[in-house]
């Protein structure tokens, strides 16, 4: 992870993460970005569930293109609030989206289209606040429509259950905007809970979210998504989100939390060791899918 972030994440880069929405959020990647003190990042994603909040509070972020920045089961995101309301630790530019428009922007990027037309958000204040959108007239029907310009991330980070060493990646459960974000990006980092051989991937190609030919780096990092869940591997650690919410109400509380859980651990395996039995109790073996024969 250290090498992937060091090599692929430059100051000022645009980075899509948290693309499956609530599950499979690559917190291990976000924490390594904070440890390497990257600056002026442009974060792209639908909802992020506190990963964005941590990067914002750590001062790594200059711009956000997102539909929602908060703490899904606990409430508002304190570091995001401080950045927007007080400029602490720095001001952040926000390009407001909805979940549909961020998906459309990434889909346009994925298929090489300049924009996608949509009927969502017409009349809302979002197209006025986010001036990258354009209102237009549909040349066929004459209807009012909204044009959502393509987003092409410098880097998309996708956490998956398993991948081979070429980056052919199996992700099961909801995909959110993962596939569009990966196909749209200039480079893709796949974070695999398990590294498998090519034959395992090729036995079930419908489960592949992104083919290795689009992938720049593969990181084998078990437990990379905690406290978010990874289907069939581990459950969501709800209380961890709630503890973060309580602990980060003040700047000092945020610094203490980041010091303990990010700066104070060398890497993900040290983080999981620090979680101790709490981590092993989250293990979820799921249930097997019916066999599909190819």
């Amino acid at each position, binding site marked *: 992870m250290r090498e992937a972030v060091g090599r692929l994440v430059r100051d000022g880069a645009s980075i899509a993460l948290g693309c*499956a929405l609530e599950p499979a959020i690559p917190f291990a990647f976000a924490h390594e970005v904070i440890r390497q003190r990257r600056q002026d990042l442009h974060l792209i994603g639908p909802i992020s569930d506190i990963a964005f909040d941590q990067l914002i509070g750590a001062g790594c972020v200059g711009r956000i293109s997102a539909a929602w920045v*908060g703490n899904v089961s606990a409430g508002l995101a304190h570091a995001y609030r401080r950045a927007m309301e007080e400029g602490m630790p720095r001001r952040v530019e926000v390009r407001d989206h*909805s979940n549909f428009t961020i998906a459309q922007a990434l889909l346009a990027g994925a298929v090489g289209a300049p924009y996608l037309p949509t009927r969502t958000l017409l009349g809302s204040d979002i197209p006025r606040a986010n001036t990258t959108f354009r209102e237009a007239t549909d040349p066929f029907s004459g209807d009012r429509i909204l044009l959502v310009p393509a987003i092409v991330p410098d880097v998309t980070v996708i956490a998956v259950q398993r991948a081979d060493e070429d980056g052919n990646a199996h992700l099961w459960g909801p995909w959110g905007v993962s596939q569009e974000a990966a196909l749209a990006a200039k480079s893709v980092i796949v974070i695999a809970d398990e590294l498998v051989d090519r034959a395992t991937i090729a036995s079930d190609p419908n489960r592949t979210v992104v083919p290795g030919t689009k992938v720049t780096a593969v990181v084998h990092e078990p437990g990379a998504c905690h406290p978010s869940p990874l289907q069939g591997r581990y459950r969501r650690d709800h209380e961890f989100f709630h503890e973060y919410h309580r602990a980060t109400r003040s700047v000092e509380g945020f610094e203490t939390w980041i010091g303990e859980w990010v700066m104070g651990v060398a890497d993900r395996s040290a983080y999981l060791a620090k979680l101790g039995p709490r981590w092993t109790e989250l293990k979820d073996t799921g249930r097997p899918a019916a066999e599909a024969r190819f």
Partner: protein
Amino acid sequence: MVAQAAREIRDGERVFVGMRLPLIAFVVAKRTHAPGAVGLFELGIVRDEPASELLYTMGDNPNVAGAVWCARTIDLMGMLQRGDVHAGFIGGAEIDVHGNLNTTAIGADRAHPAVQLPGSGGGGDIASLAQRLIVIMPHDRRRLREKVDFVTSPGYGTDGDWRRRMGLPRGGPSVLITTLGVFRFVDGSAVLVSRHPGVSVERIRDETGWPLAVAPELGETEPPSAAVLRIIREYDPEGFWTRRAE
């Protein structure tokens, strides 16, 4: 609130289920009068049976296990835009008399908000594109305002014809359910149609930030049945989502 919200789901409908209380309203509806309802979750899940245990988020593993489809956000949002979704749920920090919701920011200047809220999520899309919108909110004068600072999720804008003029293809709020009562929308404006048991119209008027319109045949909200309360308490035994509002 949850029991009343569940009543808004009709059997056989496709329902866009939002975060938090709607997760429970869907369970109640499925287990009572709407066993044929299908739940759509914006991260890319379709379920025809409620999850087996309490969900803290729609992406929790139990909401994926036993789903009939795991897909992409664009697939579910595409169904919504096509008009395939009968009803959608949202809540918000602020709502105005025309059902416009703000979940983006409090304050006049978006770049320098007084209070930064999380944002649209899928709320703006559900409000724009669902056939019917069901809104759930705690009732408070600071939340039910004459005008919201930012329209994240469009209701009826300024009047009953506004959505058509803006180019929105359908929909609009069909009901606003609060901790004190139930509003329906007439010509794009909220009208109080029922008050919850033990709540006076005067109290609702005091807690509402717009001049209150009251339906001539104002009713009292039917309290949740023992069976519905049992379902809610079985599903959320510690009251994580429901302790403030049943």
